[in-house]
């Protein structure tokens, strides 16, 4: 067993990190060693960027190079290792103060391990000013400090940071790879796992959720059914309202699950049994967590809408393939007859325009446009055919 075991379809990246953890640091400016101070893990959402980052962190902090079973490895898995610092973004933007605090903590020597490791999960969510604070730290890293940044792509970082990091690119794992992981890790049957991996378009976290949470799967199904049923402006506006509800429910469910887990972890780390009152001297910690969770709630609705947009995009990708005469590898194969009807009712130009409208809706929601309005505009475009089929 090792920390690399549960990473799906990323053998090349694993080889790079393994080699790095087994070699020594050269000087900060040298590229001769397999190991260096600053890393960037890129890959599409759900490809397992942060999983890989933490596996790498474990291999650096573990005395056995990432055995997966020792105390160091367990502490990394629980995010409580004393030589591990991390920034997990629950908000849209990483604040400059968060990065300053992290940079400060990067100056400490390791307490128990070979390295001090700092992970920034969504390094693309930094404003330029914030990036520059980080840049200074990357330019002069203390001897035993290792930075691991994660972002969708290199282009999401400013060039000066890009030139300072060694980049490791993840690929999108295949549907069978993800399905296999779900079967072995979550104990789900093969049919359910395949469907979940396919609907999640190989997004590992999403596939896990669709496979293990029937409500989440039902919400996705309703979304697809809704969009395929829109014929009129009236239906578009009603469907938009329903999708907002679905996104809200989904966000709420995810938030509650995660909040509960976190509170339980905090209670356990403070040694308080379930149902026991929290001693007053520890209450501020619990309160701090609760406030953080509240702040996060805003972002989670956006994430819920984003999941819906991803599902809608999968529908129009299927429609477009059918229009182009490709009928295998449909993502939403369960809706094949509805997809075929949609494909013959409109032109591929309209389908492309709708896919573009999905991108516009995402940008608008990111720019704070009222979500209902952004969804309405999108679904109205989806209901309209401008070019005859």
């Amino acid at each position, binding site marked *: 067993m090792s920390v690399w075991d549960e990473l799906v379809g990323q053998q090349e990246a694993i080889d790079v990190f393994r080699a790095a953890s087994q070699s020594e640091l050269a000087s900060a400016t040298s590229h001769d060693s397999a190991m260096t101070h600053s890393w960037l893990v890129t890959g599409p959402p759900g490809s397992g960027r942060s999983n890989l980052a933490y596996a790498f962190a474990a291999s650096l902090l573990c005395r056995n190079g990432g055995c997966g079973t020792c105390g160091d490895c367990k502490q990394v898995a629980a995010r409580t290792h004393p030589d591990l610092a991390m920034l997990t973004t629950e908000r849209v933007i990483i604040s400059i103060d968060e990065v300053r605090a992290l940079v400060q903590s990067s100056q400490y020597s390791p307490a128990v391990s070979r390295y001090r490791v700092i992970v920034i999960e969504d390094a693309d969510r930094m404003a330029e000013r914030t990036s520059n604070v980080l840049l200074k730290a990357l330019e002069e890293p203390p001897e035993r400090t290792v930075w691991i940044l994660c972002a969708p792509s290199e282009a999401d970082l400013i060039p000066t940071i890009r030139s300072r990091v060694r980049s490791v690119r993840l690929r999108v794992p295949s549907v069978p790879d993800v399905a296999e992981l779900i079967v072995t890790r979550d104990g789900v049957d093969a049919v359910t796992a395949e469907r979940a991996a396919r609907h999640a378009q190989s997004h590992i976290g999403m596939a896990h959720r669709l496979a293990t949470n029937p409500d989440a799967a039902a919400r996705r199904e309703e979304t697809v059914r809704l969009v395929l049923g829109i014929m*009129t*402006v*009236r239906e*578009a*506006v*009603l469907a938009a309202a329903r999708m907002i509800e679905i996104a809200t429910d989904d966000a709420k469910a995810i938030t509650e699950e995660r909040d509960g887990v976190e509170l339980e972890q905090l209670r356990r780390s403070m040694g308080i049994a379930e149902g026991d009152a929290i001693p007053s001297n520890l209450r501020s910690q619990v309160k701090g967590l609760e406030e953080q969770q509240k702040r996060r709630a805003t972002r989670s609705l956006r994430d819920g809408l984003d999941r819906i947009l991803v599902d809608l995009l999968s529908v129009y990708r299927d429609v477009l393939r059918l229009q182009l005469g490709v009928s295998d590898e449909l993502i939403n194969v369960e809706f094949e007859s509805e997809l075929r009807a949609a494909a013959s009712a409109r032109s591929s130009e309209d389908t492309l325009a709708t896919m573009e409208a999905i991108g516009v809706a995402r940008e*608008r929601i990111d*720019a*704070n*446009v*009222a979500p*209902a*309005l*952004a969804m*309405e*505009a999108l679904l*109205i*475009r989806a*209901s*309209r055919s401008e070019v005859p089929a």
Partner: protein
Amino acid sequence: MAGKAKIAIEQLSWNNAKPAPIVLVSGAEGFLADRAIQNIREILKASDASLEVSDLDASSYAPGELLTLASPSLFGEPRLIRVSDVEKCNDEFLLEMLDYAESPDSDTTVVLRHGGGVRGKKLLDTLRSGTGGAVEIVCAELKSDNDKFDFAGNEFRLAGRKIAPSALRSLVQAFSGSGSELANACQQLIADADGDITDRTVEDYYGGRIEATAFKVVDSAVAGRLGDSLVTLRHALQSGADPVPIVATFAAKLRLMAKLYGERRGSGELAGALGAAPWQIDRARKDLSGWSETGLGNAIEVIAQTDANVKGASRDPIYALERMVNVVASYGKR
């Protein structure tokens, strides 16, 4: 005694009102005057619950009324005589009041409400010179938003209530047209809202009011009255209205219209499903005349783009708003 020398009498602000044998309440702001007179009544009532209150109208004054009301009663109860419309007083009142001021009754408080103008100037001059031991409460119009902000803030302070500055600002903005409505709104919030007053509280109570201007802009636009709509819009923007809620009001209206397009069920049946009141549904149905399905779709797409524009995507949000009004007022033709 003060005599006839020209000494200025004590001039108080509306919220420092206090009783005196004669209280002159001057100034144009009626609601402040009302509040001042109410305060005087409460102070008097608190010092003696047997207070007898009577009212006189100076414009239809009948000779002898004042003396009748002010003459000592059998049990010596204190009296409060509230005289309205002194700025329109008749000659009889003027004469008798000047006379009364020479030797006012010690158990009686006469409150004279003078809303401005030259009528009764002689009486005012006499009182201001010190005759009758009068005080004056000046209730000048609250002109600037700053004055109103101070006034409203003071209302909450007096009541021992906390209100967030931003909540206070939106409250003042919602009632920028009328000081008395602002005063009422403050009192209503103080009476009805629990705890500290936040943006949310004000939105809950007066959100509708804040949207009132926006409704006018929308209503004329959906009815195809471009000129009216643009004029109202520009006026609203000039008086500091925020473009964001205006766009939101357009969105809400067109959304409801779209939900009703081709819908045959009755408004009562639909109210629950659409989350709108039956009258709103009836109204939106009427608004649909002249609209096509394509037009509705276009309009909503333009409103979505406008929302993005007023939230930073465009350097000229005003232009974006006007363009939206143009599209909506042409029934969604682009």
